[in-house]
């Protein structure tokens, strides 16, 4: 190392580092003997070691300490010693009876005869008691002899003393350190800050080098919510497959949410326990021609008297399939073209909140409105969608929905958990649904969960996490 490099290092050193360096010698010194606070000395010695100016050595030494009981014995003698000093059993404390008497007997100091303590030795003979001497030595941090250490094992078991590891640090100077020490007073004056004045002065400066490897504080940045980022990902997938985005209202009539989807008016899902009904507004308007066609389909195919008022009830949509129904109607009225449509939106269920249930969450909806469509195409779109989302292994399980036939559930295999997970439902809209709205058949359709695959992909256990909006969670989520 040349002098220049050495000077560069010296520039980095702080005041404490320099002080420590000047106090070092070739001989190892304990850290507390170096004229600095222990913590400051530790920090500085680490810096000196980093630049090879010093060597440190860590030693761990077993050391005995007195427990509270030990401190008490050191002050008031061991209970066995106290027993010898008291002849009447009734005057002994519980501790002295329980611990003192057995030890005194073991030491051959007393006998018990007819419930009386008979001392076999004098008080003075028990005064120079080896364990007590050891306690004294430990409390004064004096070194112990090997035979004393053996006795310590018994004292450990009695809980009078305890063993702890004591760390000691020793520091010594290196040859480079010696060189540096000699140059401590030759450090030139340096510029610390890079400022406008430096530039406009036109002069040359020597800049104090930084510890460029030291950590710095993270700047504050803006961030999108993880749900938005995931939705953007899904939108990109649909766009790349040629899907057009469709929109529809959250505040919806039962008509578009249920009736238009061929769901009978007494279907359990329409119950007030599952669906949010509104009191203000109570009813919503529905186009006359749609009402006529849907009424006819229900009455002819499901054989019951369809009630218009029930269908006009204002609700919060329970699925985005209501948007699909509206889009089909638009296509039927020639306001839109047949094609591939998707939508991602909030849906509402009258459920209590827990780790896997929320009263509002998102659904991913898709329809393919095309006379040439078939069941295999439905599976094709779903498989491709999940593959792009990161789920390679997928299976389709038969299921039932009132509005699709055939119907299926999508299950994906999640490698990390070695399990199958249900992520959504799909099928071909029943002709009793698509013919009144669109006039044609078939329509491929699906309604998929948004939060559930997110929970799998980002290892989120509790669905509430998404909506709590803990800013540090949003900050740390890597999407």
């Amino acid at each position, binding site marked *: 190392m040349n002098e220049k490099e050495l000077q560069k290092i010296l520039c980095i050193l702080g005041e404490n580092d320099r002080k420590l360096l000047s106090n070092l010698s070739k001989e190892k010194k304990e850290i507390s003997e170096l004229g600095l606070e222990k913590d400051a000395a530790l920090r500085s010695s680490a810096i000196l070691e980093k630049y090879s100016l010093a060597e440190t050595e860590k030693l761990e030494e077993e050391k005995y300490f007195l427990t509270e009981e030990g401190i008490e014995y050191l002050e008031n003698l061991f209970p066995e010693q106290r027993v010898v000093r008291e002849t009447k059993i009734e005057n002994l404390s519980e501790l002295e009876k329980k611990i003192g008497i057995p030890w005194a007997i073991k030491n051959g100091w007393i006998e018990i005869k007819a419930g009386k303590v008979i001392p076999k030795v004098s008080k003075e003979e028990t005064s120079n008691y080896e364990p007590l001497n050891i306690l004294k030595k430990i409390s004064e941090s004096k070194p112990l002899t090997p035979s004393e250490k053996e006795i310590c094992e018994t004292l450990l078991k009695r809980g009078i003393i305890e063993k702890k590891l004591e760390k000691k640090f020793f520091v010594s100077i290196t040859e480079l350190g010696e060189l540096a020490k000699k140059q401590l007073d030759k450090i030139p004056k340096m510029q610390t800050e890079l400022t406008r004045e430096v530039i406009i002065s036109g002069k040359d400066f020597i800049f104090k080098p930084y510890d460029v490897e030291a950590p710095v504080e993270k700047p504050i940045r803006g961030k999108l919510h993880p749900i938005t980022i995931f939705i953007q990902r899904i939108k990109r997938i649909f766009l790349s497959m040629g899907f057009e985005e469709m929109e529809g209202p959250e505040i919806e009539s039962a008509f578009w949410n249920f009736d238009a989807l061929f769901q009978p008016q007494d279907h359990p899902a329409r119950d007030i326990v599952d669906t949010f009904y509104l009191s203000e507004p109570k009813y919503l308007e529905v186009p006359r021609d749609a009402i006529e066609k849907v009424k006819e389909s229900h009455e002819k195919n499901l054989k019951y008297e369809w009630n218009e008022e029930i269908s006009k009830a204002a609700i919060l949509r329970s699925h985005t399939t209501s948007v699909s129904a509206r889009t089909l109607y638009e296509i039927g009225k020639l306001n839109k073209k047949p*094609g591939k449509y998707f939508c991602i939106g909030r849906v509402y269920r009258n459920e209590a909140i827990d780790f896997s249930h929320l009263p509002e969450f998102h659904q991913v909806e898709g329809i393919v409105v095309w006379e040439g469509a078939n069941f295999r195409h439905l599976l094709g779109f779903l498989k491709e969608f999940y593959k792009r989302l990161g789920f390679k292994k997928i299976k389709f*399980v038969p299921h039932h929905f009132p509005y699709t036939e055939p119907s299926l559930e999508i299950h994906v295999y999640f490698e990390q958990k070695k399990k199958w997970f249900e992520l959504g439902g799909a099928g*071909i809209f029943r002709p009793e649904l698509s013919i009144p709205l669109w006039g044609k058949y078939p329509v491929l359709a699906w309604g998929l969960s948004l939060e559930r695959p997110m929970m799998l992909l980002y290892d989120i256990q509790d669905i509430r996490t998404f909506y709590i909006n803990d800013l540090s969670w949003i900050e740390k989520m890597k999407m």
Partner: protein
Amino acid sequence: MAVVKYQIKRLQELIGKERPIDEIKEAIENIGEECEIDIESEEIKVNVNPNRPDLYSIEGIARAVSNFLEIREPRPYEINDAKHEIVVSNVSARPYIVAGIAYNVNVNEDFLKDIIQAQETIHENFGRKRKKIAIGLHDFDKTKPPYYYKEMKYTRFVPLDTQEELAPHEILKKHPKGIEYGDIYKNIDEYPLVFDSLGVISFTPIINCERTRIDESTKNIFIEITGTSIHEMRSALNIILCSLYDNGAKIENVKLKYVDREEDSTSFVRIEKLEYKFLNKVLGLRLKRDEIERCLKRMGFIPKSFDEKSVSILVPPYRADIIHQVDFVEDIAIAYGYENFKPKIPNFNTIGNLSKESEIEEKIKLDFVSLGFYEIVSFTLSNEEKEEMCKIENEKIKIENAISKEISIFRSSLFPSLMQVLSLNKTKSFPQKIFEMGKIGIKKEKSTRTAICALISDTKVSFSEIKGVYQIINEHLGTSYKAMDFNFTIPGRAIGIFKKGKLVGWCGEIDPKIVRNFNLENPVAGFEIILY
């Protein structure tokens, strides 16, 4: 979804050949019903979808499995002509009745347990808690035909599981079943009752009489079903009769005698057509006749004849869900096996397109993020109290029936949602800059609109800082503003935001009282604008 439990041993016996339970479970799942094996109680638990009430009975499941696994071919169900009749009067509260009789039923403890489960499951689900369908089972030999269905106010009989004679209105008050199902007969003084020639046998759908009780000595069973939908009641009757038929019973129709006409309670003959072209077009397959035949049989259908274009199918009487040939298509797909379909992306070229709303949304969000804001996604369901805390006095879209006490409205502003987020994050580092783009309810439009709200909170905030943010976002919006005060802003430190002369938002420093309402210590400034 209905959950039914079956003894594994009895199910295996009914299926015919001794098959391992795992194979049975797989078959049930492949038919489309979820199930679970409980090893300890030696039971199998099946979640039956509402379109298949025939699987609510153990015989129904056994028959479906043995057809599916091709242990047995489906057989036609036969019902004998009626020998007995029900005289049906006008019963306004519950207009319909159908009935059937099963002879030589092998009644034992297991049988009774399973048939009661099937009956109760039909009541709860298919029967909409007995409102639509209620089934009464009686010991036929303890009844005396003919039967009558009529409404009456005063008559007394001994209900099941009691000794005391009671009148219908007393049963509604005293008997546990009367209390449970009494709601069906609010504000009615004549009650629907089924009689035989000796008296009342059923106060439907509440309770049967004690006299015709079924027990292990019963040989022949009389089944009566009352309700509001004769179409579905027939399906329920067929399901029960077919289960008894599978148990070895002989079954018989019952004549319904109205004032002006007569008809049979049910019919077991139903033939429907399935066109090959339709089938193959929907599934994207080229199934041949023998494959179609095999798939149909595995799902319990009996193909009667194949002509050039279509196959005629005998629909089993217990299948309540076949209303269109597409229902055959699904069953054939299930028998073919969903796993055997090759997924395919079709050549149907369309142009992908984002909605206008999504496009502007992306631009606005990008600006917020580049200004150092965190995006918030919060609940749209809220309550009046939360909006009062912010002195938001918009008219509310109200929810009628939320089970959670926290929910009573669709929020009319994003501002309270974001204040709550600040409150939740009060221990985190400052400054905090947050925004949300989300839906709010507009009462007079009976609909929602999209709004944006942004808040800044720090040890010191200023109107000019938040107004600067508003001005950047406004590049996408084209709104104008003028000085204006709001309930929740400091007087003289807020603007009203206008679009085409209409007030669409505000921007300003938030009144410290409101900030304190949320237990916050740092001041807040913000804005909210309705977009579209």
